[in-house]
């Protein structure tokens, strides 16, 4: 299964990934329209400053996901076939347990929607927009090494 990989030596912190993530999760999927939507979408990836490099941080769909264990509402489940953590918005109550346990700080709260912001590999579009758009190709979406 494919995963997101980050060559941080190439990350220049342009934050294109954040913007295209927002656009990819907007209703319109269109940059100009997305900034005028009633409920603005928020990035599920964030460029974080490391010691001397920049790290785009997003949910990595752990094989033994702590967030799934911690979810008291059974909103988060692990799909063994897709090897992805799936979030069911209908079940989620916004308790932030997943944020409390994510070892990578890769889940962030959308306080207005009371939903955790987590990478879903742009399931609506079919391919992660961050990897598609990264101008330095620091982000790639590729098969996991065996």
């Amino acid at each position, binding site marked *: 299964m494919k995963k997101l990989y980050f060559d941080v030596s190439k990350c220049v912190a*342009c*934050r*294109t990934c*954040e*913007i*295209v993530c*927002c*656009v990819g999760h907007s209703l319109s999927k269109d*940059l*100009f329209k997305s*900034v*005028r939507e009633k409920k*603005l*979408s*928020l*990035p599920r990836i964030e460029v974080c400053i490391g010691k001397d490099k920049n790290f785009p941080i997003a949910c990595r769909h752990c094989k033994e996901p702590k967030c799934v264990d911690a979810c008291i509402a059974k909103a988060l489940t692990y799909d063994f076939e897709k090897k992805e953590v799936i979030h069911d918005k209908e079940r989620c109550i916004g308790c932030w347990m997943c944020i409390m346990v994510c070892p990578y700080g890769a889940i962030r709260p959308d306080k207005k929607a009371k939903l955790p912001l987590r990478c879903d590999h742009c399931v609506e579009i079919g391919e992660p927009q961050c990897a*598609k*758009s990264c*101008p330095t190709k620091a982000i790639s979406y590729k098969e996991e090494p065996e």
Partner: protein
Amino acid sequence: MSQEHIKKDEIQGPLYERAQEKGIETIWERETKQEPHCGFGTLGLCCKNCNLGPCRIDPFGEGATCGVCGATADTISARNLVRHIAAGTSCHSDHGREIAKTLLMAATGETKFYKVSDEEKLKKIALEYKVKVDNRKINEIAKDLAEKVLSEYGQQKGEITLIQRAPEKQKKIWNNFSLMPRGIDREVVEALSRTNVGVDNDYKNLMAHGMRVALADGWGGSMVATELTDILFGKPSPKRAKANLSVLKEDQVNLIVHGHVPLLSELVCDASSDPELIALAKEKGATGINLAGICCTANEILVRRGYPVAGDFLQQELALMTGAVDLMLVDLQCIMPTLSDIATCFHTKIVSTSPKARFPGMEHVEFKEEEALPIAKKIVRMAIENFPNRDKTKVCIPKKDAQDLIPGFTTEYVFDMLGGRYRPSFKPLNEAIMAGRIRGVAGVVGCDNPKMASSGSHEILVKELIKNDVLVVQTGCSAAACGRAGLLTPEAAFEFAGKGLKEVCEAVGCPPVLHLGSCVDNSRILTACCEMVKEGGIGKSLDELPVAGAAPEWMSEKAIAIGWYFVASGLMVLFGMPFPVYGSDNMTKYVFEDVEKITGGKWSFEPDPLKMAKIMIDHIDSKRKALSLKPMMYNTDEHR
């Protein structure tokens, strides 16, 4: 985005695929590699004006809402936009400055290679500048005029001269809202100063100055360039010509001039018809010298001398792919630095000529007014001498015949002609509009851009406009695109125009789409609009005219300046893609709502060419309605 469109094109397709086979990267691949373009930049939300930054504003609201200095999205997008306008204005104005300087040198005898060609126009313009013309020698008038014009670049107060052509209402608005340009360079410098860190932070105040800069372009630098070029080289007049890449010839020396300022290219025209050089060409095995243009240089030598147009901005690389170009001469603006790389795959020489624009890998022959003709001859000779190096097996000139077009039917020409030599008049145009035979006038101008989702937008838009009885005027690459599509011929009226427009074209013998020249010649549209107001009956000021403009595929900062001088002059302008303001709610509102309240002009952004046409037609109709003009004579829906 538009590779598919290019591939399907009978003429461009084989050349594009040739580049692909050879592994040569062209603008379409480079565009794809840049996608998606940075959202911060696209929305106008990044600022690198000072070392507190670079900063950017989060358009989705969670991150930074202002830069380190405290500038908000409003300020940042306004500052960026004003700088774009200043840059575009600088390009046109600098172009105008070159022309004025050459006129001065010609008048004082510093160069013997230029002279006043249109004395009538010289006198007319001189009078506008309050230069005495009676009983004076031509060169005395030309000297005084050129000096006056040049002095307005650094003029500190007062008003620039040519803007006095505008209707009173516009001038009143400009004075009331501090939009009236005081000088040309002066306003650009003030724009740069205002947009520095910690200076002007009020987007409305910034944008007011932005419009002042743009007006200094349209009614200043650009208009100067147009008028003085006409004085030096003569006004355009109709002539039959050819367009597209198949104008290149297998058996001739192919010399392409590319860029914007016609000073050298005009003399290259002369040099290429020099019998001595033609003889040399024959000696080298060619049957003659074939001179063609690309970009606005093409438009300049097309409308005045009828030389063929090889292509517009997007075709500059494809032209080289023919392997048949012996030399390409470039000066400045819209020149791709990749040309020199592509040329290495063939025998083609690329020669840069402007001291202001050098390109790595190009041979440089610097242009000097004092030695203009010898330099032009030298370059033509270089082309001829390179002809034997052409590898005939590598030559691939499109087989399809070049498209005919009749340029030089400027609005000035057409209606001057109708009114008669001594009574030039826009009356026939105004009357056709009042009678509902012609709906109105649309300017379709500007660049071409590989980013555009639906390529061919110029052609689609213009066809839709003329079908709806809108007379179209064109400049720049847009004109070249429609020229290739066969819209710039009188015959196009029969095939594509609505019934009313067709009747007018038939009576006059003109195309439904008029080619006015290069991109500085957009100023001709301003002048024509003033004439329409003066003639009366279709509006007492520019904002009342049933007129609209569009730059469907704009890309250059020059286009932003042009768009703004039209909007600041009370006209409606449509861009195929927005300029970077969407990141600021206030700036977006300013562009779409506030500006109209100030100048009467109006902005619109729409990527779909058919929808563009509808927006422009609706705008023209709303102006017709406000003027209580007669309903359209023919229902255009009938012959759709």
